[in-house]
Structure formats: C-alpha cells, structure tokens
C-alpha cells in the first residue's frame, strides 16, 4: 500500500508538465473559491458591524432598506426630511437615552458630508460596541470645524488644520461648491472599517450656515452672505435627514418603534438596524451567492480537467499497468494507483491554492482596505472554509474514482498483454 502510493507519486512526477498544469488550475480554482468565500464573509461581517448599540434608526417614511442605505451607509438620497420639532419630540421622549441627528445632502470630493452633533462622537458605536476614537485632533466645536474619517484623510492626504470646501449634492463632478465658506479639519477619526471612514462630519449649524444664501437647491443669484456674518443669523436647523436613537432599555424598543411609526405630525419610519441590515444583506446576498456558485463551478471545471488528463494518460499507461499486474499487482491495486493520483493532485492543488490565497491576501489587504474599505482579516483557514474544502475533497474523491475504475476495467480485460 505504501509502495503503491510511492509509485503513484513517481508516476505523477514522470508526467509533471501536464499534471503540473492541471494542479495549477485546481490550485487557482480553489484559491478563487476560498477567496470569494472569504471576501463574502468579511463583507458581511463588516457590513453587519457598520452600526451597533443603536436601537432605532428613524427617518421619513420610506422602505426600511432605503432608510438604512442613506442613514447608515450614506448611499442615495432621502425622500424626505424630518422637521426639527419632530426631532425634539423624539429626543424628549422619556424612553430615549440619546439621539444622534444626521443631516445629509452635501459632499466633499465624493465623500458624503454629514451634519450632526457632538453626541455622534460619544454615542455612535460600531463592530462589537466599539466607540469612535480620534487618531488625531478632537470633535468639532467652532462653526466651520470638520471631523473627517480615516479613509477621507488618507485618500485626500488631509492633516489637522487643512482647509476644505464642501460641494452641494452628492457625486463628484459638476457640483456647485460652497467655496465662500471653507471648513477647517480639526479631527481625524481612527479607522473603523465602516462608512464612518468615508464621511466628513460637521455640525448641524454649519449645514444651516452654508445654505443660508441658498434656496431650492441652488445659490440665490447676486445674493451672498459672507462667512463672517452667518453668526448673526439663527442657525437652528429646520430639518434633519435621520435620527439614530439609543433607548434607556432595549425592552422598550417595540413600543418606541410603534410610537415613531404612529407619530401624528408627519409620516415617519423607525427600523431596528439589525433587522434592516439583514434585509439589506439579503438583497446584496443574491449577487454574493451567485459569485460563490460561479467559483464553485470553476472548481468543478478544474476537477473535470483533472479527470480528463488522467483518463487520457490511461491509454499510454496500459503497458505500465500490465507490467504491474505481471509482478503481482491486483486489479484493486491498479484502481488505487489511479485514484490516488487524482486525490494526490487535488490535495496538493488545494494546499498550493490555500498558500497562494494566504500570500495574496496578506499582500493585498492594505490595498483592499484603502480601495474598497473592506477589511479582510488575514488567516489561513476558518471553519466555514474547511467545510468548503471538505466538499472539494469529497467531490474530487468521487471524480478520482472514475479513472481508477477505468484502469481497473482495463487491467481486467488487458491482463498481462495489452492490445495496443
């Protein structure tokens, strides 16, 4: 048995070019499969950890998924805003421990600008209830102070004291600038792996101030209020886009949700972030499952190639098998010899694929992090991936039986004298 395995290895080595190519295709397909699974896992993890500790997200009535998209991920626009009075009502509710109002609509070089209060830096949590921390500077205090996320700072190369101007609207190109009222970077947040990294934070009052001389989404022609004079105006916000709400007790979450949903003055929607994130992930998840299915098919293609290569070599090896039979190998030995080859190739292909993936993730993690804001945790293997690899090995075991069986039949019919 041991000799048979040694024989299988030496025989495989003898055909190292074709088998090597097959091995590479299996290694690559395994790396792809596990890579996709890994990105999928980490994307889902960082996705579901983009907000934590917030009991309710409140916005104008829309779909829960859309509310999450703009309130947490700052993607898309709100259909409607919430009146300031409504915000004050909700904040004053005895069940409510804290609130974070957010006001959106402006951007800076494609990064969303969020108007909020300093409560944001105190109460916003992400991941496993981690608070926001400053890698540099402090929360905004002056009117034209801005606190930027780690990603914004890194990509645009900003430091404390840099002056930035905001653009009206989302997107990057062709936007009108609030050039007359520049902001100063006073704080840079530490990296979180959440949308916070890509956000510019300013005070709600600042949002009011830069829009004083605006009406209906455009600058009023021939009318301008210089930055020095905005202090003379009432900068109390009239509207906010959404509110993140923390409750005194989680037990009251459904009562509070009902209160918001039945709020008399305007139509509102309150969602539980966990539930909405799950819903949102189900939408995104279709693509992600399709990707996994495609990479699974790539592995199947790799295994088919392997079986084809081994089967094709079988004809050339009939005499070799007859010699082995003549020195006493049983048909079962021949079966094992050929099956072992397939298994050996898949096993080493899988190992090489995993090594390749590990090396690749290790070297690409910073790049992925900075380009896609996706945190991939370098690791050799997880339990879920082990399950996938188990399936790959199981399928390859089944696939390897095919050449083994062909060789078995062939060695029975050829006996000692193959007819070639």
């Amino acid at each position, binding site marked *: 048995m041991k000799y048979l395995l040694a024989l299988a290895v*030496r025989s495989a080595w*003898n055909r190292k070019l074709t088998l090597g190519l097959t091995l590479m295709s299996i290694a690559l397909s395994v790396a792809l499969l596990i890579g996709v699974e890994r990105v999928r896992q980490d994307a889902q993890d960082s996705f579901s950890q983009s907000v934590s500790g917030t009991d309710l997200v409140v916005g104008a009535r829309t779909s829960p998924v859309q509310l999450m998209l703009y309130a947490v991920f700052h993607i898309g626009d709100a259909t409607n805003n919430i009146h300031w009075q409504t915000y004050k009502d909700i904040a004053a509710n005895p069940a409510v421990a804290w609130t974070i109002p957010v006001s959106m609509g402006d951007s800076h070089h494609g990064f969303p600008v969020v108007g909020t209060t300093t409560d944001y830096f105190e109460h916003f949590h992400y991941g496993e209830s981690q608070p926001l921390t400053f890698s540099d500077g402090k929360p905004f205090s002056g009117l034209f102070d801005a606190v930027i996320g780690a990603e914004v700072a890194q990509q645009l190369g900003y430091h404390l004291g840099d002056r930035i101007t905001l653009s009206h609207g989302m997107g990057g190109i062709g936007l009108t600038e609030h050039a007359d009222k520049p902001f100063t970077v006073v704080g840079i947040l530490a990296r979180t792996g959440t949308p916070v990294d890509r956000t510019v934070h300013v005070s709600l009052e600042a949002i009011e101030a830069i829009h004083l001389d605006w009406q209906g989404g455009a600058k009023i022609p021939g009318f301008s209020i210089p930055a020095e004079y905005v202090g003379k105006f009432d900068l109390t916000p009239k509207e906010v886009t959404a509110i993140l709400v923390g409750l005194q007790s989680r037990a009251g979450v459904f009562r509070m949700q009902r209160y918001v949903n039945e709020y008399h003055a305007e139509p509102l929607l309150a969602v539980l972030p966990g539930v909405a994130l799950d819903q949102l992930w189900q939408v995104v998840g279709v693509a992600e499952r399709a990707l996994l299915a495609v990479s699974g098919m790539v592995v199947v293609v790799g295994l088919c190639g392997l079986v084809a290569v081994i089967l094709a070599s079988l004809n050339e090896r009939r005499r070799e098998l007859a*010699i082995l039979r*003549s020195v006493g*190998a*049983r048909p079962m030995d021949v079966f094992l010899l050929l099956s072992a080859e397939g298994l050996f190739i898949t096993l080493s292909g899988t190992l090489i694929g995993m090594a390749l993936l590990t090396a690749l993730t290790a070297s690409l993690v910073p790049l992925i992090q900075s380009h896609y804001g996706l945190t991939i945790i370098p690791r050799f293997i997880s339990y879920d991936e082990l399950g996938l690899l188990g399936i790959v090995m199981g399928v390859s075991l089944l696939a390897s039986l095919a050449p083994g069986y062909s060789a078995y039949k062939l060695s029975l019919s050829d*006996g000692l*004298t193959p007819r070639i």
Partner: protein
Amino acid sequence: MANNGVVKIENLSFRYPKADSACLDIQELHANAGDRIFVYGPSGSGKSTLLGLLGGVLSPERGTISLLGHELTKMSPSARDRLRADHIGFVFQQFNLIPYLSVTDNVLLSCRFSARRHSRAVASGCTLHGEAARLLDHLDIAPELRHRPVTQLSVGQQQRVAAARALIGRPEVVIADEPTSALDAERQIAFLDLLSRECIAANATLLFVSHDRRLASGFSLEISLPSLNRAQAAQEAA
C-alpha cells in the same frame, strides 16, 4: 503436491466472454521443475490467452490449471495474483520496464508485491539491492547503469533488466513472451543464452514463447501451440 509437476494443464478450454467459440482448448500440458520449454506460438495461436491463464489473470471455462500443485481454478482472483507474484517471473516482448523507475527499482518491483520473493532475494544476496546488483552483473548490466532511468538504456539492455526482474527472488517459473523479437539476430542468441543460464542457476522452469522456431535449438523440449490448441485446429478445419 507433486514434486516435479510445476505446470499442469488438463482438459483446458477458454472462451472470451463475447466470443461464440473457444479460443483455447488444450488436452494436456506438463512442465517439470528445471524444464526449459520452447513454446512455438505464431500470432493468433492463442499465445496471449495461454499466458493469461498461466498467470491467473484469466479463468478457464472448464478444465484445470495447476501451478506448483496449486489448483488455479479453485482460487480467488486475488489469491491467484499472489501466486503469480510469488512464483512466476515474466519477461515480455518490449517496453518491459516502468519508465519512471530506475534500473534497480525496476528489478526490485517483483519483490514489492511479493513478501516471499523479497525474503528469498535477501536470503540469496544479503541485501535486496545486493541481490539486484548481483543479477544485473550476471546479465551484463554495467554498475554505472543501475541508477539511470531505464529510458536511457538500449533495447537489449532493457530486456536484460527485465530478465533480472523476472529472476529476482528465485521464482519457480519464468515465462518469456517473445523477449527477443525486438533484438537483432546476434543479440537474440546472446540474450537467450543468458536467460537459459540464469534459469538453470536458479533451477527455474522456463517457458519461452516465440513465433521464431530458429530459437528452439537450445531448449530441452519444444511444444507447438497450433497443434496443441484443438480450438484452432477445429476452426481451421471448419
């Protein structure tokens, strides 16, 4: 177990699963220990079938084959495989060697599947490799060739390595199937002499199958398969 009956075939008939008539039908064939038998077998005379039956990879329709007193027809296929490994050495026409193994590893292949031949080889040569080296020496394979890949050897050298593989561990029977057909006339005689000499030295029964009657001269007995095989005679008569 009869002392001198190494190979004993009686009333043997064999038909391939899909054939409508028998391919081989032999009344009787005997070989004793130390016999060196030339089996004249032109193509189509049922030569391969006879080899398959003797080697235990084929099973006759009726009749008996016994090898060293073991009744092959009463044994399981894997027991027949073990019997073949323990007691028969084969030399084939050409491409006799496993291309990815060295000369020595090809010779030792016989000992990998048979514990009996392994221990007998060790007993007669102190070590397994020593015995392989001794046989290769006897068969005129220079020591520097022993660790080369077999693909670098000439056809004549390859056949002599195959002979060493057939002889190692002193099997009782050596079956050679056209081992010289790829060699030129001069080398044919030389190879035959070497093979005969080593079989005598090992006291092995040699069954030498060939279509070339000119080679029969040095053998103690000549058998003509076409006249022995009643199935073929019947076909030709029809």
